[in-house]
């Protein structure tokens, strides 16, 4: 029987089935809901069949692992070669404390580091700034000067680990510090590898740790692209993040759409600054969320991979295959964790992690069960890491590439998400690109609408969150939460003052003056920032010079 005949027959069968058995059953016992939908509000059919996909386009739309459009994975062997990088985001209090946690995680079999910085560091304030009051060391490690960075990576050879740093507006400064530490360790900069998040657009959209206005931020970002392509070839210069967009309340399709729209803006800025697409595209990396609508999440990762490959090839005319590969890190969804019955979070995280692996992630962070309440304890971090190890070593899902491919439902959702994301991207293009759409508040508004809708769904009971609006129990307030002592702030400020006393203040002033005049001009700022960092200029001092020259961003008034 030909493919066409088979489809024809199936169509007839489907019709009979709907009118016969299905209708009869429905008449007797209606379904649980009038309509089933995914997080992206796609209506879910009772069953999926070959009619929902176009198998004739197999080579065009799916292909083989490591082959354009990379729907089935970016590498030919995928996890048969090696597992994804298990990378737990961590950092707290001061550099010494975080260093201890990193060494613990490496001992436990973690394969990469992921540095969390505190908010003052992320916004370019020193620990003694008035706005830093109460925030020092709270959500990550406090870094004021190179001295802190030296301590942070003490006894961790930088040529042996890859380090991911969640740092955006001041990314150039922290990267410069990392380079300086490597040099001090005697490691050549061409040997270090890792990622800086460096994705400021999503800070305007969803995460809030912006400093400068978009135009100036884009300059810093492209300066980093250029500097790294010449000096640190193994460095991932940006991690374009849908994670926080999703946390802010977007749907799965919006997560893909807005992340890729941001990515397009970065690529365009880099091209405008004179770079060739194939010169930097392979160093772009991505960062997605993994939420709970399991199949939709798997489809989301696949759709993102395919759509990006097409964009890089067709829109930006890349030649190199490596430019078209969307490599991504995944973190399980923080906003899906519940403060109620926190042990349930282990189950949620397991499913999310599994979705990420089935979706072909390159690295993964699994959240700890207590993170809806506080920073995770060592014990809960270990369970989170063990979750990944169980998936890797016991579940068997890593033994073949893209094992869910060919599922009619998975493929149909993959197509649907790709199409909706493309529609959004076209709309954003019409508005003049991602930067413009952010300034107009369009993207923020779309996300806020979805977040509100979801919350109203939870409150009406339409969306069930186990332990929160159903299956609740009386529970005692949880004990043994990790707390950051206020003494951390005092100690950190003392440390900062000591560094300031002992450094060569003439050299600092000179470095900062040089940085200022470079910022006023058009030179690449990285060498100037590196010079300032090496002179032990503080993060705040360096950021203030640029604040002065660049101004500060003011958000759109969108709710």
């Amino acid at each position: 029987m030909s493919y066409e005949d088979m489809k024809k027959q199936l169509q007839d069968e489907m019709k009979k089935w709907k009118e016969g058995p299905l209708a009869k059953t429905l008449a007797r016992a209606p379904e649980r809901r009038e309509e089933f939908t995914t997080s992206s509000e796609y209506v879910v059919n009772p069953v999926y069949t070959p009619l929902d996909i176009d198998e004739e386009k197999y080579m065009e739309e799916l292909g083989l692992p490591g082959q354009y459009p990379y729907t089935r994975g970016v590498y030919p062997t995928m996890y048969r070669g090696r597992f994804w990088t298990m990378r737990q985001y961590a950092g707290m209090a001061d550099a010494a404390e975080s260093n201890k946690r990193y060494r613990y995680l490496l001992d436990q079999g973690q394969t990469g580091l992921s540095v969390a910085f505190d908010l003052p560091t992320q916004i370019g304030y020193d620990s003694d700034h008035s706005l830093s009051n109460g925030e020092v060391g709270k959500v990550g490690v406090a870094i004021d000067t190179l001295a802190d960075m030296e301590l942070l990576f003490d006894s961790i050879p930088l040529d042996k680990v890859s380090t991911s740093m969640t740092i955006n507006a001041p990314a150039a400064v922290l990267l410069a510090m990392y380079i300086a530490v490597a040099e001090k360790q005697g490691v050549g900069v061409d040997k270090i590898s890792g990622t800086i998040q460096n994705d400021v657009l999503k800070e305007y959209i969803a995460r809030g740790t912006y400093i400068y206005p978009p135009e100036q931020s884009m300059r810093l970002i492209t300066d980093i692209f250029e500097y790294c392509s010449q000096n640190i070839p193994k460095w991932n210069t940006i991690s374009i993040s849908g994670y926080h967009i999703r946390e802010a309340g977007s749907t799965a399709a919006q997560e893909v759409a807005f992340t890729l729209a941001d990515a397009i803006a970065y690529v365009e800025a880099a091209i405008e600054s004179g770079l060739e697409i194939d010169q930097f595209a392979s160093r772009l990396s991505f960062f997605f969320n993994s939420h709970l609508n399991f199949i939709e999440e798997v489809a989301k990762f696949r759709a993102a991979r395919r759509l990006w490959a097409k964009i890089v090839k067709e829109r930006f005319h890349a030649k190199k295959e490596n430019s078209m590969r969307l490599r991504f890190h995944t973190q399980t969804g923080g906003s899906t964790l519940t403060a109620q019955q926190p042990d349930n979070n282990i189950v949620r995280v397991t499913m999310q992690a599994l979705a990420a692996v089935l979706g072909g992630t390159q690295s993964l962070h699994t959240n700890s069960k207590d993170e809806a309440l506080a920073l995770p304890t060592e014990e809960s971090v270990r369970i989170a890491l063990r979750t990944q190890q169980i998936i890797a070593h016991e579940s068997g899902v890593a033994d073949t590439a893209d094992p869910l491919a060919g599922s009619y439902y998975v493929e149909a959702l993959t197509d649907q998400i790709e199409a909706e994301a493309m529609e959004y991207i076209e709309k954003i293009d019409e508005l003049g690109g991602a930067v413009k759409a952010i300034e107009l508040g369009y993207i923020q508004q779309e996300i806020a609408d979805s977040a509100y809708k979801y919350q109203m769904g939870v409150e009406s009971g339409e969306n069930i969150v186990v332990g929160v609006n159903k299956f609740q129990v009386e529970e005692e307030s949880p004990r043994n939460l990790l707390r950051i002592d206020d003494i951390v702030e005092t100690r950190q400020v003392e440390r900062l003052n000591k560094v300031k006393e002992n450094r060569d203040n003439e050299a600092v002033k000179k470095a900062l003056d040089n940085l200022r005049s470079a910022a006023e001009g058009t030179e690449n700022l990285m060498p100037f920032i590196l010079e300032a960092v090496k002179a032990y200029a503080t993060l705040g001092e360096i950021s203030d010079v640029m604040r002065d020259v660049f101004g500060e961003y003011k958000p759109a008034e969108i709710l």
Partner: protein
Amino acid sequence: MSERKVRILVAKPGLDGHDRGAKVVARALRDAGMEVIYTGLRQTPEQIVRAAIQEDVQFIGLSCLSGAHNHLFPKVTSLLEESGADDIIVFGGGVIPSDDIPFLKEKGIKEIFGPGTGTDKIINFINSLCDE
């Protein structure tokens, strides 16, 4: 025709940029017929109190997910007291361990709404205090 509308300031003190919760609450309060003044991210306690006084709100809702609540929330209440505006009711939300709640209440925060709180609960809280 005189009508007393509930006015409420929703603010994010400190450096935390997670404003999903604050925004959802702001919308829900608007949809409950209230006037919500939203001041955005990175507000100092001084800014929050000054804005609350000028806007003559009856309530201030504070949201903080960074763990700095024990530091920031009591500053708001003590500044209100200094300004003779401690009739303004302060409540808070965010990632706040329940162990901290007694301390915050002692410092004059009327109520703390943890993760998973429905907006209806917050609306009821406000309405019940308005009826008093």
